[in-house]
């Protein structure tokens, strides 16, 4: 079963096999990059005679930025605050954010998973990583990987809740873009 609500793929000509395989390929790549849960609907339209490759997707609700309290437990201790790290994946980002806010001399790491900050203000709301920006970056990477390789004229329009990606061999013309948009709209309404 697809984890997405809608996943439609349409390829012109006698290319049922290609359509089926591209569905598997897109799932594999989105799964590899951990993006599949953030995409609600996905429409893929490929015209192999022109040729171009287009993807339109709707994103699930936005991802809030990661704060210090999300990666560890913040405790008030004598002389400042202590952060006990639970999620080491973002350790480098956390240290960078703390150094920027408090300065290196006030951030101490006595153990691998303990950071002590010599400050009176709590770091719990400090942003560690902008996950949404990271997600959009990963999504662009995924789309470039999914598109057939020779299709090097690309356009990628990303909004807060959707993305629209076109890749073609020839230069993209406004006529072509509006034609593709029309096709995708047809798929959406079908």
């Amino acid at each position: 079963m697809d984890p997405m609500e809608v996943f439609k793929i349409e390829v012109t000509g006698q290319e049922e096999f290609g359509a089926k395989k591209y569905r598997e390929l897109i799932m594999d790549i989105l799964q590899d990059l951990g993006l599949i849960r953030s995409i609600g609907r996905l429409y893929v339209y490929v015209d192999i005679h022109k040729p171009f490759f287009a993807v339109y997707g709707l994103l699930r609700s936005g991802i809030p930025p990661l704060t210090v309290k999300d990666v560890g437990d913040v405790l008030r201790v004598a002389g400042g605050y202590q952060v006990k790290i639970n999620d080491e994946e973002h350790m480098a980002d956390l240290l960078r954010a703390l150094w920027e806010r408090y300065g290196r001399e006030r951030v101490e790491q006595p153990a691998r998973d303990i950071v002590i900050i010599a400050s009176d203000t709590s770091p719990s709301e400090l942003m560690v990583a902008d996950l949404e920006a990271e997600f959009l970056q990963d999504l662009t990477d995924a789309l470039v990987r999914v598109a057939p390789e020779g299709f090097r004229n690309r356009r990628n329009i990303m909004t807060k809740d959707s993305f629209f990606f076109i890749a073609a061999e020839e230069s993209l013309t406004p006529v072509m873009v509006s034609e593709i948009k029309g096709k995708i709209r047809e798929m959406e309404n079908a």
Partner: protein
Amino acid sequence: MLEPVMFTGGLYKHDLVVELVEDLGGYILQRNLTQTEIILLILVPSEDLAVLQALAKELRGELVRAPLAGTEVAVVTPTLAIHHLPHTACDIAEYLRRHGSKTNMLGLARGVGREIAQINEYETALINEHDAAVFIFGNFQECIKKKESLYRNISVPVVVTGGPEIEAKELPYAFEYVPAIGRVAHRARKATEIGTLDRIVESVGRALDKTRSSIAKDPLTTSPPRVMDSVREQVPDVQFSYSPLPIALNLTGVRVKLPYSAFKDAVKAVTFDEGVKLGEIATIKPSRMKDYILVRILSASETGFVF
């Protein structure tokens, strides 16, 4: 006739296998040492195979037929980008290696796309130095048919792989077409996927058999393994080559992995027991691969004798 086989076993007493093969008049083509394991690619006279099998059994080793041993196959992808590698191309190359072939992976500079796909003269010549080529294409039949221009000028048999079913008559320049292995983003692990890899190996085997039978009509003056053995003995610098396989075998000759300008004369001067020099029975020319030496043995019709 020499039978190509692969011996896999422990390092302990493997020299008995090497000695036996030499005593039987066979050749050790390749020796891969992995810690305590050894893999030997061997050519052994078919009438003496039973003796070698008995020794392999005694040493608790495994002896299997390696139909592609002594051949060099090019695995060609449109580029070396993430779209084609690692899964499909590496799986195919690795599978061919397991059947004894020396496999070179080759990514074209501008092989991508449908309309814009190109191959240049250098790439064509490099592929032509191999015994067969496997071209890996994608999932759309329209593109696979269109990309025929990439291998139209290649003189060695070309096995084309791709996703959809396409009739052979639609790809007249391909030796064979193997479907069901287009662009995939995962490793081949299902039985059906492994089955497709088997079909590619069979197809490459048939392509090589075709070349072998055409060589048999006008046999080579001497066999490539014999040239390999003599070069190894008489050009000792070859053992200092950093390449894992310093002398690569082809069906029509060998590639000696030493700089052409410095060693061409030494290779030409290699002398056989019959008193013939290699330079007299083979063309020695620079290989398109790095600065190596390409030895192409002349056929009996050109030299007038076979030994």
